[in-house]
């Protein structure tokens, strides 16, 4: 795994307006390589917008972003090589098989030895037996696993996850939690947006609460474990 001697993510004064509505009102954020950051907040707090900006899918109205020191506006292709994004949508084609979807994205990323890499990712996600199934025939949980496989294909050193536990059953949630913990162990930076305080936060290093498009609170250490996180989250919402 490539480890770079820079901040994985650096956001300064990031604002985003959709028409007259401000989704982000000036967000400052730093994420270190290998850090697992939880982005918490209620619906409409700006989590998805921030992740889509970091993923280079939308441009900020104001402010600057750096992905491992690179400016997405000038070095978009380089930034996209470094990051993997799992969004609300799976980005998968229902009428293609799991394997065909992964081959398609692997080719777009220009990966070498695509069959071997696809097999490796499918095994890591426990999807080998589903390789030839059409994606539209898979359950929501399995589709989510394929979406994560797609995001991991090019071995990104920054993972952006938007509500990855949504729609997963208990077993799939546990598997995903373990997978995220192991990805963090491998040294990848992870930013996971969620409004669910029950899942995927065990391995987090830090939690940032977004409210109305601003960073309302940053927590780390014992503060983000168990009940203390819930209490801090509710106190921030009420303040």
């Amino acid at each position, binding site marked *: 795994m490539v480890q770079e001697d820079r901040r994985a993510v650096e956001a300064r004064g990031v604002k985003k307006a959709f028409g007259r509505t401000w989704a982000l009102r000036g967000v400052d954020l730093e994420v270190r390589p290998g850090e697992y950051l939880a982005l918490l907040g209620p619906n409409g707090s700006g989590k998805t917008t921030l992740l889509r900006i970091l993923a280079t*899918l939308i441009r900020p109205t104001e402010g600057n972003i750096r992905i491992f020191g690179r400016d997405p506006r000038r070095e978009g*292709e*380089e930034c996209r090589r470094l990051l993997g994004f799992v969004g609300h949508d799976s*980005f998968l*084609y229902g009428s293609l098989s799991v394997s065909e979807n992964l081959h*398609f994205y692997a*080719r777009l*990323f*220009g990966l070498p030895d695509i069959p071997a890499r696809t097999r490796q990712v499918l095994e890591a996600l426990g999807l080998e037996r589903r390789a030839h199934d059409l994606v539209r025939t898979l359950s929501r949980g399995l589709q989510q696993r394929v979406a994560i496989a797609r995001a991991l294909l090019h071995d990104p050193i920054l993972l952006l996850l938007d509500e990855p536990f949504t729609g997963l059953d208990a077993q799939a949630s546990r598997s995903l939690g373990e997978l995220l913990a192991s990805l963090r162990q491998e040294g990848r930076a992870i930013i996971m947006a969620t409004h669910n305080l029950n899942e995927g936060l065990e391995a987090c290093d830090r939690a940032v609460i977004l409210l109305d498009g601003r960073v309302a609170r940053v927590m780390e250490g014992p503060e983000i474990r168990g009940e203390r996180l819930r209490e801090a989250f509710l106190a921030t919402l009420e303040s």
Partner: protein
Amino acid sequence: MGRAILTLLWKDLRVELRTKEILTTMMVLALLILVILNVAMGQNVVTVKLAASGVLWVVFTFAATLGLSRVFLVEKERGQLSGILLAPMDRSAIFLGKMIGSTILVLLVEAVALPVFVVLFNFPLGGRVGPLLLPLFLGTVGFIAVETLFSAISAQTRLREILLPLLAFPVAMPALVGAVGATAKVLDGLPLQSAAPELQLLVAFDILFVAIGLVVFEYVVEEE
């Protein structure tokens, strides 16, 4: 860039081969328009000869517009366009991939609609099939280049399918005038050389709009 274009083309054609969503829609509309125009115009040889080129291009452009209105919209609605935009490649490859894929589909519709036109309107082409291919191809490429670009623009708006013909037809008018003119001359039995001005216009239009698409596409697909 070539690899990305081929990959996108492979995916689009594979998906279309399995779902047949766009091709079936275009094909049915093309045949319906041919039948309606045939009923309206009857078998009057003079009328058919005068209108033949116009009939063909009405069929091709309406069918193409119906199909292309879905090209970006479906992927946008299902979030798949974001997946493609995440790939580290020149985004103009998406424009070329979509344009080439759509051109192939529209040429397939034309390959079916043309013989149906010949039978329905009792308009034997004889030796004019060969010369006819050039204006059909050049006209189709120009029209599809415009439609691909505006299909991406209209997919970002609330009006979506309604906006595409409103934007694309006026802009594509020079290509359509050239295509209809060149096709009419060939159908009249004139040599292809007589359609040189129209064909030159088509070549210039095709180069211009493919170039414009390549340059502006990145800004069109990226959300503001």
